[in-house]
């Protein structure tokens, strides 16, 4: 199977390419750039004039809900949503049901992903059994079954000795540990950022310290154990500063942020709109500015969707009684382009944060369009305007405040392993 992507603006940060050119794909791999390989006959031609051609996006945190409650989503439905958003690699957390703390669950996810045949899913394994923070999960076996990193998700390990042991064990095998930092006691019962909006609405707040105290503890233990660590979905400006300081001292820590925390603040919760019930919560304008600054300076390497689909009923209740999270696979790229429009990042920088940077954090053979590499490709029209509607969106969840909102930048084609897995009509 030969595919020719013609006349697109190829942006490949890994190889510092930004030019209008042709891309030749053969047998699932990049065969050539600019000039046709000898004897190349295209089976399929994609005209990418006025479009951007870049590596398929890598979403470093997205919940596919499988195994688990199928009314929220499945690998099949959420894979389709992902490729419609230009995402060809998705990292899923272990908070499935059952939890990814046995190789069988990890294998099931890989199998379902292959069946769906749209993209690559790399599950993250549990750091402790049942995420209970008591016994180590079988990390080596999980890694052998496809787990790419280990996390206890938002269930912080209360016992610092157990946490230390987890990190020591992970360091032994050079596994990446991902922290989704949240102190359980400080966040308990909370549903939004603890500030004046929270006070007015009479909701239970989650103070910054719920994140920063845990980030501090994790940084200290990362330093002590020498583990490779990544901080997922930061929400506080102070966390960014602490991580920047650690990086300056030479600690090999990385971080990502969800696009919603870059765009929205706690003031959006005004009026009790349940779609803004998110964990980590939307925080202050200062935090948002700090996160953007961290992204620009490179303290934060990657942007993720933190995609969390829910069925309607899960969001139809008084604010605090609803389940937190919003969908984001289909809007990740469009929303991220806002950072380019605001001239906070240029387009190649943004694409790096959605492709090469997450690949580097996770050590993936992806996010790179050099000759011979896997042809995971996203083609999008940066100027096309569109609306996400419940009828046209692919995710089983429809829970996003951006539903019906005018968005700019539309994915037109997505290729995974050299196969076209999505084409917009």
């Amino acid at each position, binding site marked *: 199977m030969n595919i020719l992507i013609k006349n697109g603006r190829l942006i490949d940060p890994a190889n510092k390419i930004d030019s209008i050119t042709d891309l030749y794909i053969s047998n699932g791999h990049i065969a050539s750039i600019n000039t046709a390989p000898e004897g190349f006959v295209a089976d399929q031609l994609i005209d990418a004039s006025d479009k951007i051609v870049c590596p398929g996006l890598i979403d470093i945190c997205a919940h596919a809900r499988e195994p688990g409650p199928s009314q929220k989503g499945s690998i099949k439905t959420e894979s389709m949503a992902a490729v419609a958003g230009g995402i060809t690699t998705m990292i899923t957390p272990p908070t499935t049901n059952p939890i990814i703390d046995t190789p069988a669950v990890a294998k099931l996810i890989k199998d379902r992903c292959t069946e769906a045949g749209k993209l690559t899913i790399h599950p993250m394994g549990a750091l402790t059994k049942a995420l209970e923070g008591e016994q180590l999960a079988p990390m080596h076996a999980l890694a052998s079954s496809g787990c790419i990193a280990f996390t206890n998700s938002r269930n912080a390990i209360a016992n610092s000795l157990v946490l230390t042991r987890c990190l020591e064990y992970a360091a032994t095998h050079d596994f990446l540990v991902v922290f989704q930092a949240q102190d359980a006691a400080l966040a308990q019962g909370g549903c939004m950022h*603890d*500030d*004046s909006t*929270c*006070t*007015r*609405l*009479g*909701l*239970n*707040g989650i*103070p910054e310290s719920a994140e920063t105290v845990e980030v501090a503890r994790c940084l200290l233990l990362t330093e002590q154990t020498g583990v490779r660590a990544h901080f997922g979905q930061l929400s506080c400006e102070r966390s960014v500063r602490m991580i920047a300081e650690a990086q300056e001292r030479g600690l090999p820590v990385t971080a990502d942020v969800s696009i919603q925390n870059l*765009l*929205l603040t706690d*003031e*959006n919760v*005004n*009026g*009790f*709109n*349940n779609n803004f019930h998110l964990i980590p919560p939307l925080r202050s304008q200062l935090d948002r500015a700090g996160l953007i600054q961290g992204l620009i300076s490179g303290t934060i390497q990657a942007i993720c969707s933190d995609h969390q689909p829910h069925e309607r*009923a899960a969001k*139809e*209740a*008084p*604010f*605090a*009684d609803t389940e937190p999270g919003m969908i984001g696979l289909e809007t990740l790229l469009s929303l991220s382009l*806002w950072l380019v429009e605001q001239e906070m990042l240029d387009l190649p920088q943004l694409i790096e944060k959605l492709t090469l940077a997450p690949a580097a954090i996770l050590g993936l053979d992806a996010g790179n369009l050099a000759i011979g590499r896997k042809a995971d490709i996203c083609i999008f029209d940066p100027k096309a305007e569109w609306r996400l509607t419940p009828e046209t969106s692919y995710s089983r969840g429809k829970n996003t*405040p*951006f539903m019906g*909102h005018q968005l700019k930048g539309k994915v037109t084609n997505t290729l995974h392993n050299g196969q076209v897995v999505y084409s917009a009509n």
Partner: protein
Amino acid sequence: MLEHTDPSQVQLTKDGELKHFITTEYLSREVLTEILDTADSFVDLGAKQVKKVPLLRGKTVVNLFFEASTRTLSTFELAAKRLSADVLNLNISTSSTSKGETLKDTLMTLHAMHSDMFVVRHSSSGAAHFIAEHVTPDVAVINAGDGRHAHPTQAMLDMLTIRQAKGAFEPLSVAIVGDILHSRVARSQIHALRTLGVEDIRVIAPNTLLPRHIESLGVKVYTNMQQGIKDVDVVMMLRLQKERMNSALLPSESEFYKLYGLTMDKLALAKPDAVVMHPGPINRGVEIASSVADCDRSLILDQVTNGIAVRMAVMSMAVSGQTKSRSNNNGTEV
């Protein structure tokens, strides 16, 4: 990036009339004054031989209490009956939700029974707002207390009591004392006092019972009661729930009483004609001394009497707003 939903519009008709009563926030001084004036006209009704007016005749009012309550429920029931409505009291915490029914389904079921008004008390902040905005916008929703968010009829009966005792609002200094953090009453009082023109609103509590940035609501914060209560005209005490001791918010009831309990000694620091209020039920010897609760400056029982009048006022106003809103909508459809 996203336009905020405008929370001020939920409880008003296009013409700015009340159609739900969710919160005292965002309401104009005119609307709040109209509530007080309407309530005033109902105050004397209770003393009459025949205590009824026909304003809600033929209407069905459902009191939906997801949280236990005695005085609020009974005053709402009396208010509805004095307006000649048919009243149904439902204690939901012991029926539907224990069978797994969602709040929305419970409301839709009652909606199908052609109810005209839901009086809702719920432990979650935003519950009444959720019902009014998303579940049954065409049924008048009266918030009888939602989580820590709002208890607007309590606040308005407090305003009525203050107006009766003091006349104008502008020159007053008002102190709200106690568990501000968990108090929907305090939040609703603060919004109402501000809108009615009170400049000097003080909250008095230890840091553990103060919500973050409460000063953003336009109040002055005092952690020392002697300083906070000095020269105020009105002292509004809040109930302290006993479980606060167990959650490490306070060391003991006795320490709280010593520092923040309203005693005659502390009341002496307020203006000589300062009045004392409390939403009830009172904890004697925890937040208020019996000698204060029972003294002639205590307006606690006036508050109860006014509660019925204020609830009659907002119920009749909301039903009227709903009726107008419906006929307007019908008009545009034709």
